[in-house]
């Protein structure tokens, strides 16, 4: 036993020596992989959807080739990304779809995150059916008639009900509550990831099968598989305040950028650049299509876009 006590004491002493005896605030500890070898590093959060990958690819390309930074990207889901951003483990989120609770906590109360302005792209979430299906049955585009089509939309995973396909569990969604509150004979089935959802939708479209899916714009797939939105009860300010009681459509969201406060203040030209980064839905879709459809690597896609749009990004650097 004595051996253990001595080693424990030694361990504690070493720990104290190593760290100094003061307080250590772990919310201020950056990633151990950041700023290696004196390089100036920016860490960007990549979300799992392709549009966000397009933002990050272009920002990364310009930061590396025009401003001389080393860029690390980390895949973090939306909500944990706020926590990581607050702790400085990530420097910036380039596309946020609206998280009022986190905004209140980190931007208003703790002030560890600073708003970075509009991305320039407007997002909208909704329920969509493929246009070929909507043409056959025009009344499917109103939620009141959805129960009529539940049988047509049944799959192995949805059991006896119709299938409402959702993508990644991490995305902003009220679908389970909506199905319950609107009394729909549907089962929400999570594909697990957006890519899985896209694969599934493409398979359906190939065979011209009907499907009902959580989807959003801007999204490059709508150019490959034309889709029509199903009307939900109209959105009114505050109707989605209680997540369990939601019974209305999703809002139209101007997508936002957020920066870690420390980075926003001391990040130099990189922070300045990310603040000014602003482009249009078409620009984003163009890069997204290059990545997702033509299977270019993100940096190649970014290079292609950057080569053709000098006038746009020159403004971000000045």
């Amino acid at each position, binding site marked *: 036993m004595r051996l253990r006590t001595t080693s424990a004491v030694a361990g504690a002493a070493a720990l104290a020596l190593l760290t100094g005896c003061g307080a250590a605030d772990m919310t201020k500890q950056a990633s151990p*992989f950041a700023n290696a070898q004196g390089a100036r590093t920016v860490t960007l959060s990549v979300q*799992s959807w392709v549009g966000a990958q397009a933002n990050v690819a272009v920002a990364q390309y310009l930061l590396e080739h025009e401003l001389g930074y080393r860029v690390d990207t980390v895949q973090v*889901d939306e909500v944990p990304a706020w926590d990581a951003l607050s702790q400085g483990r990530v420097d910036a989120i380039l596309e946020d779809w609206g998280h009022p609770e986190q905004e209140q906590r980190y931007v208003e109360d703790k002030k560890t995150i600073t708003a970075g302005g509009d991305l320039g792209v407007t997002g909208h979430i909704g329920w969509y059916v493929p246009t070929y299906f909507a043409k056959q049955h025009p009344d499917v585009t109103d939620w009141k008639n959805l129960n009529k089509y539940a049988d047509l939309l049944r799959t192995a995973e949805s059991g006896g009900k119709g299938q409402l396909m959702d993508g990644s569990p991490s995305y902003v969604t009220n679908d389970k509550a909506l199905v319950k509150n609107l009394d729909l004979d549907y089962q929400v089935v999570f594909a*697990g990831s957006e890519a899985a959802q896209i694969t599934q939708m493409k398979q359906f479209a190939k065979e011209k099968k009907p499907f009902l899916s959580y989807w959003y714009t801007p999204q490059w797939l709508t150019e490959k598989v034309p889709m029509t939105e199903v009307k939900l009860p109209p959105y009114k300010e505050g109707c989605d305040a209680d997540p369990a009681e939601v019974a209305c459509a999703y809002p139209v969201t101007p997508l936002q950028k957020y920066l870690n406060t420390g980075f926003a203040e001391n990040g130099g030209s990189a922070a300045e650049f990310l603040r000014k980064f602003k482009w249009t839905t078409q620009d984003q879709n163009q890069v997204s299509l290059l990545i997702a459809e033509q299977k270019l690597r993100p940096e190649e896609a970014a290079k292609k876009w950057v080569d053709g749009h000098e006038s746009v990004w020159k403004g971000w650097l000045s």
Partner: protein
Amino acid sequence: MATLTATAHKPAPPGILANRAVRKLLVLAVAAAVLAPVAATQWPGAAWPTALTVDLSEPLGRASDWIIDNRDSHPLFLYFFGHVSNVVVLAVRAVYLALLAVGWAGVTAVGALVAWRVAGVRLALGTAVAFLACGLLGMWVPTMQTLALMVVAVLASVVVGALLGLAAGLSDRMDRALRPVLDTMQVLPAFAYLLPVVLVFGIGVPAAVLATVVYAAPPMARLTSLGLRGADKEVLEAVESLGTTARQRLLTARIPLARKELLLGVNQTIMMALSMAVIASVIGAGGLGDRVYQALASVDVGAALAAGIPIVLLAVVLDRVTGAAGERLGGPGEAGKSPLTWLYLLLAAAAVAVAGRLGDFLDWPDGWELNIAEPVNRAVDWMTAHLYSDVPVVGGTADWAAHFTSWVLNPLRDGLQWLPWWSVLLVVAALAWLIGTWRTALTAVLAMAAIGVLGVWDPSLDTLSQVLAAVAVTLVIGFATGIAAARSDRFERLLRPVLDVFQTMPQFVYLIPVVALFGVGRAPAAAAAVVYALPAVVRITAQGLRQVDPAALESARSLGASSGQQLRQVQLPLARRSLLLAVNQGVVLVLAVVIIGGLVGGGALGYQVVFGLAQGDLAAGLVAGAAIVCLGLMLDRVTQPTERRTPKKGA
């Protein structure tokens, strides 16, 4: 562990066993006859009664909020967790910077030289090729990040594990207290470890390292204790008679005598740490695992493979080198261990590193990268276009997955959920008691009941149905292959390297090919689980059959039994214990991967953990994590043969 005491028992003759089994079943039947009507009238319906659940989401949600709000101000965080986190960050950073400073040429050279000294020329070449392949695939920096994290996690695990093992090896009371805990940790899926550390440390490297340490330290502790306790009594007595003190005996006799177990422990720890360091990408570990995770999220099989190959190479090299070091130490020849050769080695490594610095060989050169993602993706596209569905006669892989889902998984799940909850408990009790003792039965029933109390009865049964289906498939294929391997030497020789490689691969890697083949859903998750669990089942089956007493076989043969009869009537019954062990291992390994299957649409408990992490809704995730722990406990107890296994592979 009550079952440990039973290791010495010979299998009882069938007559008595049957009697005892009948008696156990009778007791259960009486209990059921008394309790079931009460339960059925009090709480009707098949699902776990809501009156008996405890909703933990409220307090857990509050706890999680409190932690986030106080992480930068409360003394507990400032003076304890903050320092822990700080030390981890500093250590990982130091190792990472050192690796980068040595450069790719230096790291490769050092790796190869160390491998050469401890394991010989062939492994040295293998190591060098593996490192170069990581660079060629464009994964040098992620590989170094993973390596840095691994080095820190393995060192910490070895120290923690060795200390715990030392305590358990020297004190009987510690041993009794620690052993059940360590045994249980061995059977828990890696995913269950992630959430509690995230709750405290947030997403990032510190959480990843700590989860890895918790996961990888138990085998070291077990083997250290085993080694200390297994030391030759006569040698110890001889040392004692020389009038040594307890400490001298420990340092000069017991620890050196246990070095083989210690090295095996290090080997196990390294393998488990690698497995976990990759899975921990889900909580922000970065490195290779993160690349796989990103690629899986966009079903980019090519990119996932480019990151997966370095993981496999790293695993194989680390396993072989540490394994060879262990054998060499255990063996008679201990040449090449003199300090002088190590000095030369150090000098050579330093020379290469300096040369690398001067020759500007630090960063992997851009032009030397091989883009395998594109051709692989083209192959996968071709596969999905041609093999996915509507293949004449056999049907496509997606069709198989759909059939497996609607013909096997769905009925099984619906059947389980249709069973009244008390009957599920009864079945669990019966199975566990028949195969083990009343204690294992009690643990199993309590674990299952805890799942109900936590309010995740239905998703747990969903996960259970996936586990059962995957285990059934695993056992059919595994036993068949195992029997073939036991009967044909040539087949076994062919099989051995394949099994070796498959047994060292981290669980995460198995998700990549199944997504390519079967798309997304419960069927691919089950398929990955089958592939992951097969090697262990095949190996244990083959070993069990081969160890059957040759005299028994000989006498059967002389009585004119055909080879089929020999197998059925002699070999299989005599190898019963090994077969049970294979079932147990199969179940534990399948569960681990079915849970990770939540990342590729496996749903149920795995999905809830992913959901909890993804939405920052730790309450949901923690409840699911606890249910996974209970399910793992239950499955282990229900299939636990009366002999404890030695740890072979991370479960």
